[in-house]
């Protein structure tokens, strides 16, 4: 059973490096760690290098060093307990319930697995997460876009990437080069924010518009991520703009809840109410008001009223 033999050897290697208080040279490891036994020098070298890589990939911090500062002694390996172990953590019952809830958030396979492994480590450390509580709460964050995982890895490793991007349905795809800073979810859609190398400026991309794969385009750790305020500013187009303007609208009784709920003043009338409604963009407000048809009439400002009438006339087929 090859897996069993390898797992044993890896476990014995971890234990050896963990319990030893000095750096253990490769030659000694070969003698005392079960599983390296009788094989050629070359085979041992290959096997040992592969084992070290496998353990490092699991996040095990294997250090190289020498016990002899003058460097005469063969270099060796060690695992420092403080670097290896999960630090002490104690959770109150309400905190354990939060953790249990958090364990159910991710709907994406890799992130759900990562969460499970994290929760398992905490359980192994004696933290009892409470997954039974709060069964009536369903916090779900989905990730449909295949581009998410490679971009998350690029953000994590600070590695530049390249991908094809299609601006809108039916457009041709263009090749982009990005230094990714952050991935964000807004209303169920994922976006990546970063520095567009070709355009020499920050850019935001919707992941569902990435066509095909995301490929590395540079070394890990080859750029710096700017302060949070800069990253936030680059994602600004996602944030609803401040509603600095006011409009007056007449709304038929029993209608227009979407406007009523954000009205700053409401003057009740005979079958119709007069509302003052804040807005950011006249075109967006005109769209909204037009949708209400004959149940809402925009009174002022004039320029937005004109735009509503323009939309209605276009539907009828009259010239604006």
């Amino acid at each position, binding site marked *: 059973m090859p897996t069993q033999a390898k797992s044993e050897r890896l476990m014995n290697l971890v234990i050896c490096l963990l319990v030893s208080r000095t750096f253990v040279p490769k030659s000694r490891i070969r003698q005392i760690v079960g599983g390296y036994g009788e094989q050629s020098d070359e085979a041992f070298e290959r096997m040992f290098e592969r084992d070290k890589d496998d353990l490092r990939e699991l996040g095990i911090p294997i250090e190289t060093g020498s016990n002899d500062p003058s460097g005469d002694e063969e270099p060796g390996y060690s695992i420092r307990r403080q670097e290896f172990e999960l630090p002490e953590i104690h959770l109150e019952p309400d905190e354990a319930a939060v953790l249990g809830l958090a364990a159910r958030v991710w709907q994406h396979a890799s992130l759900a697995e990562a969460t499970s492994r994290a929760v398992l480590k905490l359980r192994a450390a004696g933290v009892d997460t409470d997954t039974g509580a709060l069964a009536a709460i369903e916090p779900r964050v989905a990730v449909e876009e295949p581009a998410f995982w490679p971009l998350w890895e690029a953000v994590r490793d600070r590695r530049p990437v390249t991908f094809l991007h299609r601006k809108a349905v039916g457009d041709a795809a263009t090749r982009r080069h990005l230094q990714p800073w952050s991935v964000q979810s807004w209303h169920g859609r994922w976006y990546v924010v970063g520095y567009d190398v070709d355009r020499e400026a920050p850019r935001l991309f919707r992941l569902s518009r990435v066509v095909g794969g995301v490929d590395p385009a540079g070394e890990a750790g080859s750029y710096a991520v700017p302060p949070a305020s800069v990253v936030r500013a680059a994602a600004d187009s996602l944030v609803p703009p401040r509603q600095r303007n006011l409009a007056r609208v007449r709304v038929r009784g029993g209608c227009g809840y979407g406007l009523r709920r954000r009205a700053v003043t409401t003057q009740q009338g005979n079958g119709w109410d007069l509302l003052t409604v804040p807005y950011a963009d006249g075109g967006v407000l005109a769209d909204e008001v037009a949708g209400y048809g004959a149940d809402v009439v925009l009174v002022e400002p004039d320029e937005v009223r004109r735009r509503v009438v323009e939309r209605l006339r276009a*539907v009828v087929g009259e010239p604006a």
Partner: protein
Amino acid sequence: MSRRPSGAQEQVSRLLSLLPYLLSHPNSRVADVARLFGVSEQQILRDLNVLWFSGLPGLAMGDYIEVDMEAVEGEGVINVSNADYLARPLRLGTDEALALVVAVRTLAAMPGTHDRSAVDRTITKLECAAGAAAERAAAVRVEVDGDAVAGVASAVRRALDEKRRLHLSYWVPGRDETTERDVDPMRLALADGRLYLEGWCRRAESVRLFRLDRIAGIALLDLPAEVPREARSRDLSAGIFQPSPDDLLVTLVLEPAGRWVADYYPCETADEIGADRLRVTIRVSDPRWMRRLALRLGGTGRIVDPPDLAAETVADARAALDAYATTVAEEPERRAEAS
């Protein structure tokens, strides 16, 4: 890791959590441990076999990890010893810290899920325990439309906790109607960055989803919630918008400025028809919603099929234009009244 872990890597990763777990939870049943670790009982037995052959370097007598195999085969419980060097699990990896911290931060933005202070304390403790691995967690953000609906969310949460019926005034945008309904709450769900109440609507006699930001009024009733046994929660993994083949199929022609419709709503078909225009078909459960969309689109898109729907939309627009013409005439009088 960019590539899938090998069989041995996966096993070792699990063993590094399994061993400390078994050391701190003596007499655990094999079946329970298997379930906890998400593997078969046979796999746990294979894992124990690996532990049995592991130990201190040199592997002399007394160096091996001790596993009471008789108890495993007999009562089906696990007891291990002589392995204090692995009494604590491995620290959290970057992906593990990220996944957990971002999940808890998302909960922080979701009113009604928990006491805010409990969430904040949990975040602090996790960040401490994760150390450097949690640094990148700030690079992943999930926005939740939470603040505006905090009051409604609290009421829903209370109704769920106390298992009481709710009375809702609920606004349906497509019809621009606010309807009154009694609802027996089932779940508070986050989907697509928005909060929903899932409940048994007593009026419709079926399970319904209510978006919290469309709840105009909410009150807890002095009645117990009675969710019928046959009520099934909706499978939200397919998304909130779930058209049925019985829904009306509407064809729209979109000008360049109206192409966002194809991005925003799930279309059954989308075809280029030249000059940067797009023809799309969309399934609609309530045609009134589509009529409103057509008015909003104005000149940037129009309904071409079914023709009746297109005609109704034109009638809607004419009625609206009449209202604008009338209001212009009335306005000077109203202003005179007000002043």
